[in-house]
């Protein structure tokens, strides 16, 4: 079946079997391997992508269901090649990753949170990432990274003098 979708602001057309998940289509057909394959039944959150801005598990969505939707993967978050988004940067600075397997899913989930809540409480952050499993770093530094990014993003719009205080 032909499926037309907008991936990271680029219209693409793929021809897939109905049983292919969005996850497999992204990785195999579009070569966007930043979206990680974990449990493949909706438990671990490693394959989280944004569908029309909302976090969705790519392993729990068929590629044919995504026809006409806007998909954002981890490859679509950086502002330019070689750069990182504020949130990605925060994960590096606070050591919010170790093996990195859960990181794309964590970052997209956190990105969606920060899009609708610019001043999330610790509890809201923990709730938002409760569906993303990390098995090495632990959640402390991941939560710290999201708090750090939220603070930076909030201050980015302040006048320079206030930001310096």
């Amino acid at each position, binding site marked *: 079946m032909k499926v037309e979708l907008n991936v990271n602001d680029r219209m693409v057309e793929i021809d897939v079997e109905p*049983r292919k998940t969005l996850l497999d289509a992204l990785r195999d057909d579009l070569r966007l391997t930043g979206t990680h394959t974990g449990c493949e039944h909706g438990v671990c959150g490693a394959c989280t992508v944004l569908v029309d801005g909302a976090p*969705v598990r790519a392993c729990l969505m068929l590629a044919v269901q995504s026809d006409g939707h806007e998909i954002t993967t981890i490859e679509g978050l950086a502002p330019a090649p070689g750069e990182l988004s504020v949130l990605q940067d925060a994960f590096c600075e606070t050591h919010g990753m170790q093996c990195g397997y859960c990181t794309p899913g964590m970052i997209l989930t956190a990105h969606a949170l920060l899009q609708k809540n610019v001043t999330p409480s610790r509890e809201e952050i923990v709730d938002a990432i409760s569906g993303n499993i990390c098995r090495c770093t632990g959640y402390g530094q991941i939560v710290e990274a999201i708090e750090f990014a939220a603070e930076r993003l909030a201050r980015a719009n302040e006048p320079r003098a206030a930001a310096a205080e």
Partner: protein
Amino acid sequence: MKPAPFDYIRPDTVSNVCALLADNFDARIIAGGQTLIPMLAMRLARPTLLIDVARIAELRRIEIDGDHLVIGAATRQAEAEASPDIARYVPLLHAALPWIGHAPTRSRGTVGGSIANADPSAEIPLVAVTLRAEIILREGEDEFIVPAEDFFIGAMVTAAAPEACLTAVRLPVWNGAVGVGFQEISARRSDFAFASAAAQLSLDPEGRISRIVLGVGGVEDRPVAIDLGEVAGEVLDRRRLSDAVASGIEALHAETDLHASAAYRKRAALDLAVKAVVQAHSNASAALETRR
């Protein structure tokens, strides 16, 4: 690719869905797919045809109809969670929605899908049974209205025929000083509940309970309503409440499984049910206070 092969079709009306269901014995409806897709991946489900109803406009609505709120079956759980009408008219559903899965599964999962799937520990079926909601089914051109307590037969088993399409759920809207309580326990946040309880009550101007409903999930193989008629008509008495809830839960048949023993489920349900009613009472009292 893990699932067995199947065909996929996206009809644009419920009539077409019903025609496809009638012609294809092995067809399954897919809406959000948050339970069905893992079942396909594990090959526990092997339909030959998937009928995607997620984009059918008549299945995506939230509207008042007399003294009921009607929610179209393909309404996403995330949409329902953000709906001011659900928060206002069916506050018990509003309270239960954040407990369903995780935010990423709620962005895809639907209200009707959760009802049709009939997991014994699922939140929306519990709310439907507690509030005496009505489930609306279409078979061909015929419409059937099934009370929620008759709809759920057992674990993943419902009164819906294989050729039926669940189109909406009708939830009663209560008036007056209404309060709700929702409680759940699971191994991890958002996991399947070992036991859960939903309560809604309203208070008369003197603070006496005028109406009260309670339901528990995860204990039997389907959500069940517990009659608390004996505590209605009076102000809340914790002792009488506990006794009434205990006798209701005592009569339930719980199953032991890998996750929790039957005794644990009943003990947890008792505690959660009392907490849910107390929470509902305290919310209703606050509502009564603001109305004064």
